[in-house]
């Protein structure tokens, strides 16, 4: 817990924490203004639709999670090597696993604050339009978001352990989460025509799906446009499947990252 406490203190005084807080505020502020001015029906017709549109289908919640993962996890371990802070911490009577877990908990806590900021503004807008009526599904979605954050941080810590250069680990995780995973998932579904059950981004779809009036069917097949257009299959991750994917990513990447950090040398 000591490592977590001081790592958090370092985060709270760092520029990146405030940059993320400001990004969260900007996104929320922009959405508040747009929804307030245009009043789109998907947002203002019913309370669940509001939360589904704001938190779920806009993909903003997952974007905030990914940004937090990159900002706080991208160089959490590689920075210890590149910036030589590891020379201060590692030669103490302390297991490397304690350092790894301590840093992970600090990154998770700092990211939760950023997500809480976004959730708080979402709820504030919800109160404005619908009063204090917060749907239970939003609570489930928050829980799934926390699970997704854990998985994303597991993944970013793994890449951070893999590289000694902070910029390289941040760049690789940013490319993977912001572009590559979504692209690969789309290609798998459209070209290989299989369910992308092994993609973390697929598992994260539960965050939005759980806010639907009726949870979407697992597999749907139909024409894309009219009866003449080709038949396509759409996969919607189920909640147990999504939870399993996120937990599996968290455990596997967490263990791999820890093993890499244990074996890595300060040369």
């Amino acid at each position, binding site marked *: 817990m000591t490592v977590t406490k001081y790592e958090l203190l370092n985060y709270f005084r760092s520029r990146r924490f405030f940059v993320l807080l400001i990004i969260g505020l900007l996104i929320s502020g922009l959405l508040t203004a747009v929804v307030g001015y245009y009043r789109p029906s998907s947002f203002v017709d019913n309370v669940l639709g509001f939360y589904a549109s704001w938190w779920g289908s806009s993909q903003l919640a997952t974007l905030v999670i990914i940004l937090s993962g990159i900002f706080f996890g991208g160089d959490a371990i590689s920075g210890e090597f590149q910036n030589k802070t590891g020379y201060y911490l590692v030669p103490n009577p302390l297991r*490397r696993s304690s350092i790894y877990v301590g840093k992970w908990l600090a990154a998770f806590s700092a990211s939760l604050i950023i997500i809480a900021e976004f959730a708080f503004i979402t709820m504030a807008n919800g109160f404005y339009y619908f009063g204090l009526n917060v749907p239970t599904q939003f609570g489930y979605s928050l829980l799934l978001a926390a699970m997704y954050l854990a998985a994303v941080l597991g993944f970013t810590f793994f890449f951070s352990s893999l590289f000694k250069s902070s910029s390289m680990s941040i760049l690789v995780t940013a490319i993977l989460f912001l572009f590559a995973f979504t692209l690969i998932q789309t290609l798998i579904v459209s070209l290989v025509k299989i369910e992308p059950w092994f993609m973390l981004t697929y598992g994260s779809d539960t965050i939005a799906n759980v806010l639907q009036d009726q949870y979407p069917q697992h597999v749907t097949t139909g024409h894309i446009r009219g009866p003449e257009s080709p038949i396509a299959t759409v996969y919607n991750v189920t909640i147990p499947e999504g939870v399993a994917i996120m937990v599996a990513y968290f455990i596997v990447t967490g263990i791999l990252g820890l093993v890499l950090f244990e074996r890595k040398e300060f040369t």
Partner: protein
Amino acid sequence: MPSIEARDLTKRYGSFAALSNLNLKIEGAKCVGFLGPNGAGKTTTLKIFTDLIRASSGQALINGVDVHKEKKKALDPCGVLIETPEIYPALTPREALSMISEIRGVPRQERAKRVEAVVAEVKMEEWMDKKVGKFSKGMKQRINVATALLTDPDIVLLDEPTTGLDPRGQAEVRDIVKSLKQKNRLVFMSSHLLNEVSEVCDEVAMIDHGKLLVYDTLTSVTEKFTQDGGEVEVHVDLLKDIDDKTLSSQVSPIAGVVSAEKVAARTLRIRMTGGLDDQSRLLSELVTLKIGVVSFRPSTSRLEDTYLKMIKDTL
């Protein structure tokens, strides 16, 4: 009795052996200088002792405990400073040192007092609550030295501790090391500065190409190598001019003198063989000659002579 021991310690990077079956056992309260040229394996050895890298084979033992197998127990009695560590830039020295004192299990009621004491020891009290990110390299190194002393450790492992420090800072670190000796601590310190090692260390271990060349007391090592035909150059300043006849007929024939020449009217350069006893005898004889000896100083330290001879011999 505190001890550190390298047992057949080997570290390979591919086909390159940074350390090759290093065997070295240091016991008791003393200061041991660890010397060798760049790439000799000094830092590699210290990094293995502090879990920063792993040995390819062999063991690094602190008080008989294997660092690799029981890191917490092995490093518990140690204060460590390897290279020039960076502290989280947003933390102040008070916070950084508090973090280490918590990690090292210093009782809560003693923490603040200990932190203030070690910061005072490295004369950084004024900077106690300023962010480390704004510090110069020398200031950071002072905090690193303070960190190594934080728990009043029995064993102190230092890797070139005066790196980045100004001359005053270097002198202060030397004084700190000397005070550790008085407190019966075991200090194992690598350094490039031979004068520093001569001044503060009781024993010296020399390493080159990953192999231990010698480990003995400072006196034994220097005696051995100067007595084995090593030459020492001595500069002698005189109160009055010396003529060539006196130089050739009275100074040059003194036993052990290889050559004697005038560098200036009142300065002699004498090359001689032998150890400290021979130097003492030469000085006595020069005084007896009544040529007005004002100062008598070897041009290089005996440790430096020994070091250069040993390292040259391994090339």
